């Protein structure tokens, strides 16, 4: 019992903190803070595996705090409690890569415990892998940087855009790349089976199929493919799902300038190389291996079936 994991709860409501710490206390060493400043202080003094913060707090908002935590303690897994949706803050935090999961308030103790437990395990796994890679190849990250130029061109798969739109979007990209594009999900699956896709750029609006489910399906089969959502659907629930279910790299709302899109793609391509080189960095993959999603929803099942069908078709045609 001496080796309980450290977790930190941040909320401006002391009674919520006390109630939560009571139910978590048996399994974790629980630290509490009533505001961002206190929380940062605790983070600096203790090794915190998981931080759970409320979004709405006086002084420093939750996503701001988590952004700072990411810098101070990058391995700390960050969870955000959102009472009611604050769209701009959510979109910002999604794209800043600050958050592992969004949790809706109120949340059952059981669910919260699960989430925290997942977070703790991911943290431990990442730390362990970091130690492994450090001992195995201490200077690897440096060589990675040097090798960038020699890397094969990034393959970009656009799903749900017109060729003209793709032409325009890719006009300012500075790294070498190959463009694949698909208008239907079947085409997308075919493309994914045919080539190794570095970055998947997708809309969310596919009629009967749920965009997030599509990405989730892809992520399960091709965990190293980095996903970017480019859509005109501005919806907090979608944004939260894109993080919680797909761990999306960027959620971009239209319109977007070619320059900033190019920057996003360059970063995504880099991220893809990092995943290939050091798979433990892939938090989604780690999460999946620890706790596979319980049951696929019907929509997702259908999508998975499509993917399998596409794969079979491809194999047949090759043989």
């Amino acid at each position, binding site marked *: 019992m001496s080796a309980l994991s450290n977790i930190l709860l941040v909320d401006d409501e002391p009674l*919520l903190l006390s109630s939560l710490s009571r139910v978590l206390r048996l399994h974790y060493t629980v630290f509490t803070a009533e505001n961002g400043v206190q929380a940062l202080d605790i983070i600096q003094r203790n090794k915190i595996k998981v931080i759970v913060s409320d979004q709405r707090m006086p*002084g420093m908002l939750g996503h701001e705090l988590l952004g700072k935590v990411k810098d101070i303690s990058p391995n700390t897994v960050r969870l955000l409690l959102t009472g009611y949706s604050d769209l701009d803050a959510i979109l910002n935090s999604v794209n800043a890569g600050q958050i592992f999961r969004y949790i809706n308030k109120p949340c059952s103790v059981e669910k919260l415990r699960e989430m925290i437990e997942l977070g703790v395990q991911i943290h431990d796994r990442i730390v362990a892998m970091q130690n492994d890679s450090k001992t195995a190849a201490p200077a690897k990250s440096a060589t990675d940087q040097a090798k960038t130029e020699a890397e094969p061109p990034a393959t970009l798969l656009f799903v749900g855009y017109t060729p003209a739109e793709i032409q325009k979007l890719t006009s300012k990209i500075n790294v070498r790349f190959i463009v694949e594009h698909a208008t239907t999900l079947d085409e997308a699956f075919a493309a994914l089976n045919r080539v190794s896709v570095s970055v998947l750029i997708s809309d969310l609006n596919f009629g009967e199929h749920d965009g997030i489910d599509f990405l989730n399906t892809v992520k399960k089969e091709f965990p190293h493919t980095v996903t970017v959502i480019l859509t005109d659907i501005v919806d907090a629930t979608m944004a939260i799902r894109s993080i919680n279910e797909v761990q999306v790299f960027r959620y971009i709302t239209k319109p977007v300038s070619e320059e900033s899109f190019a920057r996003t793609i360059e970063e995504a391509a880099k991220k893809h190389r990092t995943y290939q080189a050091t798979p433990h960095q892939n938090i989604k993959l780690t999460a999946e291996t620890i706790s596979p999603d319980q049951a696929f929803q019907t929509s997702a099942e259908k999508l998975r079936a499509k993917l399998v069908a596409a794969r079979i078709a491809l194999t047949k045609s090759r043989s």
Partner: protein
Amino acid sequence: MLGNLQKYREIIISVALFLILDLSVLVVSSITTGQLESDAVAVNLASRQRELSQRIVKTLLQIQIAQNAGHSIEGPQNELATTFKIFDETIEGLRDGRLVTGGDYKTVMLIPVETDSAKVYLERAFLIWNPFKEKLFRVIAAKNTVPQEDLQDAVEYASNNNLLLLDLMNFITSEAEKKLSDKSNTLRTIQITGIIAALINFFILLFHFIRKLRSQDAEITRYSENLEKMVDIRTRELRTAQEQLRATNISLEKAKYELEILNSQLEQKVEERTAELKNTQTQLIQSEKMAALGQMVAGLAHEVNTPLAFVKTNLEGMSEFQKEIFAILEESNKLCESLKNDDIENLDKHLVRLAEMQERVNQANTMQDISDMLRESLTGMDRIQELVINLKNFSRLDEAEYKYADIHAGIDSTLLIANNIIKNKARVVKEYAPKLYAECYPAQLNQVFLNLITNAAQAIEHNDGEIKIKTSIEDGYAVIRVSDNGKGIPKEHLNRIFEPFFTTKPVGQGTGLGLSICYQIIEKHFGVMHVESQVGVGTTFTIKIPVKQKRDGATTKSIRSRASDLQIA
């Protein structure tokens, strides 16, 4: 003028010619006539000379007879003297021209003879007359009796020469007659010529006039033809114009009719539009209300959510503890059973288990936890209850619409409602008067307070926000000031903020009706509302409403009716 002269030149010349001709004829003929008269006198007197010479001879003879008979010779002698005198005058007049005694003894001017033959005859007559004159003079001069010899001499001379003298006088007379006839012929010729010339001139003039008249006629005809043409054209034009006018008139009438129709349609449309507008306005006010309500509900949801979250957590935790406590209870029941049944074997086992359980519960401080959980949950529930009561207070649904109400209570309940908006932005500083009551529509006033407090919180964009609410009583007015230290309102917006639909928020994030509705509400309370602001320093809204509304029925009624308007809106 010159043109006129030019135009009348011919006439002037003709008339002048005519006048000259006539005048000259007149002059010539008058001269000639004068001459003719003189000539006639000459003829007459020359002819009279014959008679006079014969009378001289006769009187001589009478004198001779009378003398011879011894009678007085005075009578014939005087007659002779007179006759002699007249004859002498006349013959001298014929030669030299002079005044002589004419017929009837009037004095006339006698002009000398002109023709050469007449002059010759006259010379010869003088040759006879001069010696005769002397002889006669002696007869005339003699008194009483004439010497015979003189008388004889005279009679002899007379009988010898009288015939010759008579002839000569005849010649002279015929000469004069001839001259007279010549002259009268000339005169006639002149007169006839003059008349003919005048006539010619007249005809020329006449012809000229006629020609002129004719050309004028032609011109007039041409002119009048032109005129007619022009009149025709004009008439046609006029007719066309008239027709156009008639057409215009008709179209005007038509337009007027259409206008009337349009007018009536317009009126109808205006009515429809007004209705639509009213409808839209109602909808807008409704949407503003809904927006405010949405904001309020979201805030309240958050406010309720927090106690709900920890109460739920506590209950979940307690259900876990409950399992342990139930297990202990069960174990102690079993222990009791064993005791009753003297089941020593099991008794020991149960006792150990129970001790273990109790130890675990004690170590985990579970009992303390449970009491804390219960207490805190109750606190949470209290908070939720407070919120609900406050919501009721804020809306005042269960109270009289219009009453003498505690303004501070209204502000406080509003602050609780708005807590969610304020709490992350600013602290609230209250500077309340000891007591502040006013006759009002409390729910509506709360709406105003909520709007002002929300605005104040939204204006604050830094970490040191402060919202100050100050109340006082001034001159029978309840005064409420809501100040913030936010970004302030630019001057150009300041006098527009109470305008309906004025908003600086992006489209879709505010109807711009909030403050205008507040303004209406305060107006309905016969109060005033104004704003002071400085960019970067802050904003203060001041509300003043009468503590007591006027007691006269009309005012109260009007307040009520106006307030009910607002309710409808």
